[in-house]
C-alpha cells in the first residue's frame, strides 16, 4: 500500500534507534525547579505566590494574563525560593518562579477528578485552560484557544499528530506505546468538544508498533488510524493536513479555515489529565539523546527541571558537547548551558558532539534546485534567502517568504551549505517589522 504524504520534504537519518526501545523512566526531582512564567505563545503568566510561601504540587503559582495565556503550576510540593529572572530556553533571561522541593511531592487538595460524562464542552475548555495545557509538539500554543474556534468555523476533521518526524525524538512514540488510553481519552474529549465527524490519528510508518497498537485499540471506534510515509516534515501541521485530507490550508490562513484542527498526541494526554484527573500540566515526556550523552533515555520530567538533571539521569556526557539543542535537530533551539530548565514544549534534549556540528563553509549557489524540491511549502528558498540577505524585503515578500514554515529542509539539503532557512527567517522578521512601521 502506498502511504499517504505531502509533496516535497527530505529524508534525514531518523536516529531514533538510540532511544526508541527505552521505556519511559521517571527523572528524579532536582534541588530546585525553575518554572518560567512564559512557556507558551501569548502573554506570560503573572506570579501569584510570594517568596518563602509553601506550595502544594499542582498549585497555581502564576496566573494567566488575558485570553491567549495560560497559568503555570508548582511541579511538586515545596517552598518558593525565588521569583527572578533565570536563563530561559528562548535564549534570554526571563522571569521564573523557583520551587525548592520538600520531598513529599504532595498534591494540592484543590484538584479534583471529574466525570467527563457530566461536563459540557465549555466546562472542558475551562478545565484545559486552568490546567495550563499548551500544544506539546513544540510550539506551545495555548490549547484552550485552539479549542474555542469562532462558531462559524466548524471543525469537521480532527487530526491527532503522532508523526514525530523530527529525527532523534521518541517521546511521543513511547507515550503512544505506554499510555495509549490517556491519549484516546483525550481524543474522545476533543471529539466531544468539537463535534467532529472525522477523527484521525496520524502516525509515521517508522513506528509500526504504535500503529498496530492504535489500530487494535481504535477498532470499532470512530477513530481512524492513518500510517504516513516517513518523511520530514510530515508532522508539520499543514503537511499533516495535506496528507490526511488532501486539502491545503490557505496561505496566511489557519487549519480551521478548512474545517480542520490538529493536536499532538501528548497534548491529548495532557487534556485527559486536566479534565478527568483535574491535574495541571506539570510534567511531560522528554527524550534525552544524541551522540554526546552516555545513555539516551525517554524521561518523565517535571516542568522546570534544569537540563543538568536530565543529563545526570542519563549517565552524564560521553564528551564535551558541541551543541545543546532543546527539541529536535531540525527545528530545536541551541542552548547556552545546562542551567536552563525544560519547559512545557520541551520534547527533547539533544546533545551533539563538536564533530557533529562543525560548520561547512558556505559556497555560491549552484542553482541545483534541491531546496526547491525539498521545500514542503513549494516556495523558492534560494531566491528568497538571496533577497532577504540583501535586505530586498519587498522582493522576499513577493516570493512568498511569509509562507515559509521554517522546517529547515532547504538548509539541510543545500550542497553549498548556504544558511537558507536562516536567511528566510531574517527576511520574515524584516517583512513583519516593515508592516508594523507602515
Amino acid at each position, binding site marked *: 500500500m502506498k502511504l499517504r504524504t505531502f509533496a516535497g520534504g527530505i529524508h*534525514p537519518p531518523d536516529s531514533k534507534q538510540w532511544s526508541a526501545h527505552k521505556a519511559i523512566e521517571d527523572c528524579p526531582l532536582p534541588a530546585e525547579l525553575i518554572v518560567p512564567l512564559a512557556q507558551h505563545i501569548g502573554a506570560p503568566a503573572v506570579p501569584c505566590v510570594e517568596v518563602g510561601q509553601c506550595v502544594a504540587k499542582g498549585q497555581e503559582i502564576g496566573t494567566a494574563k488575558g485570553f491567549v495565556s495560560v497559568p503555570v503550576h508548582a511541579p511538586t510540593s515545596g517552598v518558593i525560593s525565588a521569583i527572578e529572572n533565570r536563563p530561559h530556553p528562548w535564549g534570554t533571561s526571563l522571569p521564573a518562579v523557583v520551587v525548592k522541593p520538600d520531598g513529599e511531592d504532595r498534591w494540592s487538595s484543590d484538584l479534583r477528578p471529574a466525570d467527563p460524562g457530566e461536563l459540557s464542552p465549555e466546562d472542558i475548555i475551562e478545565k484545559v485552560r486552568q490546567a495550563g495545557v499548551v500544544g506539546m509538539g513544540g510550539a506551545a500554543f495555548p490549547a484552550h484557544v485552539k479549542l474555542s474556534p469562532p462558531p462559524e468555523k466548524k471543525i469537521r476533521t480532527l487530526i491527532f499528530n503522532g508523526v514525530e518526524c523530527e*529525527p532523534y525524538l521518541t517521546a511521543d512514540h513511547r507515550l503512544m506505546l505506554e499510555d495509549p488510553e490517556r491519549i484516546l481519552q483525550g481524543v474522545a474529549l476533543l471529539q466531544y468538544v468539537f463535534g467532529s465527524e472525522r477523527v484521525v490519528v496520524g502516525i509515521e510508518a517508522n513506528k509500526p508498533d504504535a500503529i498496530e497498537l492504535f489500530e487494535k485499540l481504535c477498532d470499532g471506534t470512530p477513530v481512524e488510524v492513518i500510517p504516513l510515509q516517513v518523511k520530514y516534515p510530515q508532522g508539520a501541521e*499543514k503537511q499533516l493536513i*495535506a496528507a490526511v485530507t488532501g486539502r*491545503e*490550508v*490557505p*496561505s496566511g490562513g489557519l487549519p480551521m479555515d478548512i474545517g480542520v484542527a490538529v493536536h499532538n498526541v501528548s497534548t491529548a494526554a495532557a487534556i485527559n489529565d486536566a479534565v478527568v484527573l483535574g491535574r495541571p500540566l506539570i510534567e511531560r515526556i522528554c527524550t534525552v539523546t544524541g551522540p554526546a550523552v552516555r545513555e539516551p533515555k525517554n524521561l518523565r520530567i517535571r516542568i522546570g527541571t534544569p537540563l*543538568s538533571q536530565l*543529563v*545526570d539521569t542519563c549517565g*552524564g*556526557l560521553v564528551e*564535551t*558537547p*558541541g*551543541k*545543546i*539543542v532543546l527539541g529536535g*535537530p*531540525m*527545528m*530545536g*533551539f*541551541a*542552548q547556552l*548551558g*545546562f542551567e536552563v530548565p525544560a519547559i512545557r514544549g520541551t520534547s527533547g534534549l*539533544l546533545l551533539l558532539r563538536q564533530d*557533529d*556540528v562543525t*560548520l561547512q563553509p558556505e*559556497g*555560491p549557489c*549552484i*542553482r*541545483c*534546485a534541491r531546496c*526547491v*524540491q525539498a521545500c514542503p*511549502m*513549494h*516556495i*523558492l528558498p*534560494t*531566491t528568497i534567502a538571496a533577497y532577504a540577505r540583501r535586505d530586498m524585503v519587498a522582493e522576499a515578500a513577493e*516570493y*512568498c517568504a511569509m*509562507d515559509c514554515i*521554517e522546517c*529547515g529542509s532547504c*538548509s*539541510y*539539503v*543545500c*550542497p*553549498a*551549505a548556504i*544558511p537558507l*532557512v536562516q536567511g528566510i527567517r531574517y527576511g520574515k522578521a524584516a517583512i513583519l517589522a516593515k508592516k508594523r512601521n507602515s
Partner: protein
Amino acid sequence: MSPVSQQLYLSSSPHIHSGESTARVMRAVLYSLIPACGVAIYFFGIPALAVLLIATLGCLATETVCQRLMRQPVTIADGSAAITGVLLALNLPPTSPWWLTLLGSVIAIAVGKQVYGGLGANPFNPALVARVVLLISFPVQMTTWSAPAPLGSGLDLVTTATPLGVWKNAVMLTGHLPESMQGGTIDYFLGNMPGCLGEVSALALLLGAAYLFYRRILTWHIPTSFIGTVVLLSGLFWLISPEKYPSPAFHLLTGGLVLGAFYMATDMVTTPVSTRGMLLFGVGCGVLTVLIRLFGGYPEGVSFAILLMNGATPLIDRYLRPRTFGALAGKV
C-alpha cells in the same frame, strides 16, 4: 555534571546537514563521464585522449589564472572547472588541434564563467559558449570529422562527415535522403560513427546518466522533455515526408542530442529551478534543435538550442514559479 565547554555552537536550526557538498556533486558528475571518455578514447585513440587532457588542464589553469588576477581564492578543487573541461572536450572533434582545444578552454572559463563572477553566476553553459565560439570562428577545424578507428584495429583516423552532415549536404543538393543512410542504428547507439568525442556513444552517456539519476543529481524533467520533443517533432516531419527528413531514431542517436539532453541542458547553474520551468526548458531545447537541424544553416542545432534556452532561463524562473502550498486561486 561536567562543566560546559566554551566551544558551544549557538547557530539557529537546523542543526544537522545532509553532508552533501558542491565538490561531491561535481565529483559525481566527473565519475559519470568516465564511460563516455572511455568510449571516445577507444574509438578515436590518442588524439581523443589529448583533447580531453588539454581541455581539462586548460580549464583548470584558466580558472586559476583568472582567480589569481582577481585576488580571489582559487576554487579549482570544487571540480566545476574540471567538468567544464571534460564537457568541452566531449563537444570537440577528435582531430581538433591542440591550440583550438586550449583556446576553447580559455573561452569557456574566462568568457563563459569568470567574467560573470564564477561558479553559479554564469548565464550560459561555459562549455557550449566555447564550442559555439569555436564553431563560428574556426568552421573548418570544428567540422573536420574522422571515422572511428577503434584501438587495436590498426586503422588511422580518416576524414569524413558526420551522419547529420551527410544528411544535410544530401538534402541541400538533391532534396532527399542519401542511400547510405539506411540502417546503422546499432552502430550509432554504440558510438561507431564520426562525431564529437562525446557525441558518439549514446550507450556510454546513458550509463553515466543512470549513475547521476541514482545519485539524485539528475532529475528526469529536462532530458525527458528535451528528447521527447525532438522525437515527436522530428517524427511528425518524418511521417509527412520520409524521403526528405530522417527518422526520430536518427535524430536521437546521431549528433549531440543525448550528450546535450543529459549533460549540457541539465547544467544546474544555467537551467530553471522549478519543475515546470525545467519541462518548458526541455521542450524549448527540443523545438529549437529540430528547427535548426531541419531548416537552419548548420547540420547540428543542439548547442545553439541549449544556449538560447539558457538565455531564457531567468525569464522562465520569473514566470514559472512553483505554485505555493495553499496559494489562493490566481496567485503563485
